[in-house]
């Protein structure tokens, strides 16, 4: 169990970590060879049975991967990113990096390994999809690893409450040993929350709180001493404070990151070098103090930095960002552009006042997207029968149809939708047979009802493809122009597949192109296997909170 510290001891704890690392770490000791930094980043949104999918674990891993490659001195060839892969893949990747590390040590290099995991953990094991990786084995593997320095970050926990939490069911705690008496050397472990806490995600930042703050700190926000570099101690201290603050008012309660270490040597481990990158945003010393939020084009906060007296630097990747500063009565909002390989300087005077209602932070909205919700659609389509034309002896005519559909999205889990539909179609046809001579014309009508189960990909995107199965009931009728012929009808169940693509016109409306292919069994005059295809367009409205 990982004890969470009272707030009054937080600062003392950070100092303790800094002192221990400074007095024992090997990382930057100048007496030995160059430091070769290896890194493995693992993210998996799925946790298998008993869990519900996370929204941002994979993105957390990508983000951390990008930050460490840009600022952490890790070469592209020395880093591995595993997204939604299995435990075997993780172990294989770890073995490969360890092999490379041994080779580097043989050449006299100092080595470090940065292991990052974001995903589910339950019953003492990391959950990677339907595979498991026991925590103890991971710790033992890292403790005995060949690198001089090992830093492991675990962003995982039990599932939670009404806020977006890392979703596992109530179970024994995700335990990370924080006891400093273990014999393993050169290992630091950071966890996102205490043993009895949930690790929470947020749509506003599009990430888990801990990973977001850790990444933001590594971009420069955590540079407490202003030397342009972020050490392990600084990163942890920053992530701890910001995570606790961000989650203090959440329904799941405050989240307290933890750490454990077992180190020997001296010197601190520098995780990122903001100055050397020479790319990002500089907040000059004369800018008003306060917290500045950097928001990307999606309306998602990608970093934040608290400015005091000295100037601050945050190593944003090239792009255009919205800058927001929150005052007591208004917002200050503006735009900055970070050019490739250049440092932009923020001019606070160019920010404009904005109302709180015009907050540029929109968030990803994924929680809503992936929540169970209804949508309704109005459809127009055309049904084509896989048969000869009725004028050539076929049984059923093709027909245009109109109808409607109601869908429950994410009903059987994320992406799995269940829909009910009904259509009415009409047309004309003729029965032509040699015996009849002249064809017998008729008016045709068709009613179909059906239910579909399908999977929607990229629900949060503008284009949402889907594919599934449908079971339909078709009721056909025809009334002949000649009074001597009786009205005829046919009713049949028809299984089929449905596929389509939704284009979001906005938050709620969407235009859907849909196709269906069905089997149709005819069994009156004879038994024949027919089929039909339907193609159509739907105007869709989603009821999302």
């Amino acid at each position, binding site marked *: 169990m990982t004890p969470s510290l009272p707030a009054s001891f937080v600062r003392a704890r950070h100092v303790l970590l800094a002192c221990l690392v400074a007095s024992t770490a090997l990382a930057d000791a100048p007496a030995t060879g160059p430091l070769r930094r290896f890194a493995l980043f693992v993210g998996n949104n799925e946790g298998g049975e008993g869990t519900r999918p996370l929204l941002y674990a994979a993105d957390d891993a990508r983000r951390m991967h990008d930050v460490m490659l840009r600022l952490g001195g890790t070469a592209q060839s020395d880093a591995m990113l595993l997204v939604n892969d299995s435990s075997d893949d993780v172990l294989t990747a770890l073995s490969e990096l360890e092999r490379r590390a041994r080779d580097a040590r043989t050449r006299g290099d100092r080595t470090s390994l940065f292991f990052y995991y974001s995903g589910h953990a339950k019953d003492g094991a990391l959950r990677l999809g339907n595979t498991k990786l026991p925590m103890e084995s991971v710790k033992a593997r890292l403790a005995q690893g060949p690198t001089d320095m090992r830093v492991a970050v675990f962003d995982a926990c039990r599932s939670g409450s009404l806020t977006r939490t890392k979703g596992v069911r109530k179970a024994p705690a995700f335990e990370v040993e924080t006891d400093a008496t273990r014999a393993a050397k050169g290992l630091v472990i950071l966890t996102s929350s205490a043993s009895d806490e949930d690790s929470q995600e947020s749509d506003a930042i599009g990430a888990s709180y801990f990973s977001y703050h850790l990444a933001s700190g590594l971009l420069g926000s955590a540079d407490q001493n202003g030397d342009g570099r972020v050490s392990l101690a600084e990163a942890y201290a920053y992530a701890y404070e910001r995570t606790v603050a961000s989650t203090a008012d959440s329904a799941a309660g405050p989240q307290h990151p933890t750490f454990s270490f077992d180190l020997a040597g001296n010197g601190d481990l520098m995780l990122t070098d903001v100055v050397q990158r020479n790319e990002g945003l500089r907040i000059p010393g004369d800018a008003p103090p306060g917290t500045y939020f950097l928001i990307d084009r999606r309306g998602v906060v990608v970093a934040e930095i608290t400015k005091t007296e000295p100037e601050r630097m945050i190593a944003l990747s090239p792009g255009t960002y919205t800058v927001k500063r929150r005052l007591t009565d208004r917002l200050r909002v503006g735009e900055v552009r970070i050019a490739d390989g250049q440092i932009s300087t923020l001019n606070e005077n160019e920010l404009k006042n904005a109302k709180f209602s015009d907050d540029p932070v929109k968030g990803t909205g994924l929680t809503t997207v992936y929540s169970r919700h209804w949508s309704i659609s109005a459809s127009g389509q055309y049904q084509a029968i896989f048969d000869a034309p009725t004028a050539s002896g076929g049984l059923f005519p093709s027909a245009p149809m109109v109808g409607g559909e109601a869908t429950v999205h994410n009903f059987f889990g994320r992406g799995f939708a269940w829909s009910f539909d009904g259509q009415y179609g009409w047309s004309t046809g003729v029965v032509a047979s040699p015996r009849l001579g002249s064809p017998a014309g008729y008016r045709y009508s068709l009613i179909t009802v059906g239910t579909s189960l399908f999977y929607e990909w990229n629900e949060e995107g503008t284009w949402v493809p889907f594919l599934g199965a449908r079971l339909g009931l078709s009721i056909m009728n025809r009334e002949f122009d000649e009074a001597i*012929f*009786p009205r005829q009808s046919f009713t049949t*169940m028809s299984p089929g597949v449905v596929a389509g693509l939704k284009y979001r016109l906005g938050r709620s409306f969407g235009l859907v192109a849909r196709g269906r292919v069905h089997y149709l069994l005819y069994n009156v005059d004879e038994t024949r296997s027919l089929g039909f295809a339907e193609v159509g367009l739907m105007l869709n409205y989603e009821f999302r909170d």
Partner: protein
Amino acid sequence: MRLLLLFTVLALTACGGTWSNRDLEFVAALPSRAALSAKLPASATSTQPLSRSDGLNAGEPSQAFAETKKAVTDFNGLLDFFLGVLDTVRAVPPTSRDGESRTWGPFTAKDNPGFEFQVTIALIGTEPQDTYGWKLQARRLGTPAFFDVVRGAFQASAETVRKGMGQIEVPVKDFRDQLKLGEPFNQLDSIQLGYVTSSFPNTSTLAFTFTPGNTSGFSSLGYAAKRAEDGSGAMGFSLKTTDVNTTRLDVISKWRADGAGISIATVGEGNYRGATKVECWNASFKVTFFKENWPGGRESGTQADCVSIEGL
């Protein structure tokens, strides 16, 4: 989930239907009242008031046309007796299909409690043309065997099953003791109907054979109706009576599409054999010529004003 299960079960049990292209061929092979009935010109639907007591004077409403109209009405009414049942049955899809046959029923007979009836039609040959046999049958409830009420045969034309030639027989004598029949049929032994619809003029002939000693005074009665493609038509009937003066009376009426026509009544057998009455009328159904050929017979108008109707 229960609703889904219920929906699925209901839907599965609802599969099937009456969607059959072949049914139409069988239905078309059955005779219909519309195809066999006699049709007067459309203008004849308005009632002509008869203001005279006999057909003496040209320009007065034609008594002969009024009698022709009544004969057509009677003829069509007789067709209704046995073709009406077929029309009723044909309005619904067959109850069962068995290869080259279709069966409607059995249905409960409303007019004959304790009985049920069925209609069966079968394709019984294809050379030289498709030939169908059909029956309207009845049986007492609880008994296995059906007996024929109406039976018919039809040979389709080379082009279509909608047209052809056929015969229908109502063997009244065979089932008279079992089914409850109206009074006129209690005095009949059989009804025969023959028809040709494959070429113009379409013809329909009806022949009634009466029970010996019946009270109607008839021993037999025959109708013949013809319809030409241009809308002209003819209706003839021949009746035999017990009256020694007019043992057999033959009447033939013909009309054009515009309504003008001619009627000739001749005593074929009896003491007045050879007596003939001719009456012509125009498109307004007014007499244009009237003549009785027996001594003292009357004559009015000019014979040249009579219409000439060929081919019927």
